[in-house]
């Protein structure tokens, strides 16, 4: 019969061995999860990277094989009259969407600051555009304009549709900021003698500004890239995504890839700026 101390020692050894095996298994699981996630990120980006690469291909079709590096497709974009016109249209609508939806969304977020009867209904209502499929949104507004015999136009039907689309996003971003406001700062201002208007403009608004700017940039982004609603709501004028759509049913040249790459870079650039502002 072994003495107690040896038995305990052996038991501890067994326990430690089991613990090591477990820890190693967990380590393996973590490494596996890491590899899986990184692989998935790569797959998420791969097609866009392919587009980017193909836009520099000196070939007449947007396919491999690689025939050499060239900027000519980007030059062709600059010379392409339609591209400049559509870009102007997209820019104009996006800026207008940005202004209107930011004002509406910020006001709404401010109004939601304190609980009131119907508070939840307003919140759900503001999020309703998010659960409405794009085609339904586009089609229903199209019907509205058609019914009242208003001609679809860029700064009419298209703008309206874009604002409805962007509003929930602006609202959510600013609302999060509003919720995070420390009321004591405003109370301090009031205690120090400022009236409500002064407090709002000199304390509340500056504190909200990063969120508002971030929300505005998101609204711009959403409108600039928007396709499906614009498809139903536009009259004859085309935005950049609509122009791109038209090019997709012809023979694909690397010029299309170049246009896509430019749009992607603009979006990413604006997104990074918006992210910077919302994190301030």
């Amino acid at each position, binding site marked *: 019969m072994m003495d107690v101390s040896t038995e305990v020692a052996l038991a501890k050894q067994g326990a430690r061995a089991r613990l090591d095996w477990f820890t190693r298994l967990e380590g393996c699981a973590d490494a596996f999860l890491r590899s899986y996630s990184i692989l998935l990120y790569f797959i*998420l980006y791969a*097609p866009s990277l*392919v587009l980017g690469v193909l836009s520099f291909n000196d070939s007449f079709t947007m396919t491999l094989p690689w025939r050499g590096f060239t900027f000519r497709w980007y030059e062709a974009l600059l010379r392409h009259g339609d591209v400049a016109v559509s870009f102007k249209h997209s820019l104009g609508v996006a800026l207008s969407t940005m202004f209107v939806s930011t004002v509406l969304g910020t006001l709404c977020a401010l109004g939601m600051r304190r609980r009131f009867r119907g508070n939840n209904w307003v919140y759900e209502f503001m999020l309703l555009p998010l659960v409405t499929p794009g085609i*339904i*949104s586009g089609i229903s507004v199209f019907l509205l304009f058609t019914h009242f015999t208003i001609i679809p136009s860029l700064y009419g039907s298209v703008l309206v549709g874009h604002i409805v689309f962007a509003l929930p996003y602006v609202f959510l971003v600013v609302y999060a900021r509003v919720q995070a406001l420390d009321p004591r700062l405003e109370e301090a201002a009031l205690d120090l003698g400022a009236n409500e208007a002064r407090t709002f403009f000199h304390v509340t608004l500056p504190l909200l500004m990063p969120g508002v700017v971030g929300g505005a940039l998101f609204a711009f982004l959403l409108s600039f890239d928007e*396709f499906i609603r614009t498809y139903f709501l536009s009259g004859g004028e085309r935005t950049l995504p609509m122009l791109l759509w038209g090019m*997709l049913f012809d023979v694909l040249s690397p010029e299309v890839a170049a246009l896509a790459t430019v749009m992607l870079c603009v979006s*990413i650039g604006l997104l990074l700026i918006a992210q910077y502002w919302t994190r301030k």
Partner: protein
Amino acid sequence: MGYLPWLVTPACVWLGLFLLLPLVIVLVYSLWESTITGIRPVWGLQNYRRIFEGTLYLRLLAKSLTTAVIVTMLTILIGYPVAYFVARKSGRYKAIFLILVLVPFWTSFLLRNFAWMPVLGTHGVLNQLLVGLRILAQPRPIFLYSDLAVYIGFVHTLLPYLIVPVYVSIEALDPRLIEAAKDLGASKIRTLLHITIPLSMPGIISGSIIVFVNVAGAYVTPRLLGGSSGIMYGNTLADQFGATYDLPFGSALSLILMIIVLLGIGLLKRFASVRGLYGA
């Protein structure tokens, strides 16, 4: 500050006019009839009878809904581990991983769908790769314009819409709950299944709703990647406002889609609250 809640009025009026009113008009038009001379307000169910008495539209609807359910499940399976990884296991690189998953979220949906065309096409990257690796003798045109391409397109473009809400809800979990589970002796798997996943349900549900809504009402993905056999409900719906121009019939189709989407969301939310009661 009794005036504060009134600040929500502009936004609500806007949505009431340009989201709700259009839907009412869709409802009204769905009960009317399209004739050679124009649209007649007959106030009858002829459009609905046409939809439910044949099999064409019901089959398309079933196809869209089944695809929506499958894609939702796929995105949850593929995306949850990534969200978990970023929220809890990414360490120093969390901010980078987060930005990297937000970029696709905010870039053009159209572009991300389109990006698959040069990858899956007959002369695309995939075929070139397979031929180069001698897996295929020649390029095959079977990848693009197929159900496979449509599924790949859906999962790829909608994955970020699931990962972000799930990330937010995992991130918001109180880490002390996980610690408590460990202290009480639960294994990692047990903690995952019984604590982490049930508590991140709100995020899973939110993400699922976004994915489901997007697939059910999809137009771009099946049109670009599906070919002639890839038609989904959204495409037929869009036709009614394009070539066919049967506004009342299109309205009926739209209304049915909207009702189903709302039912689906209601179901998902009900599922969440039941799970909440059970798991909590």
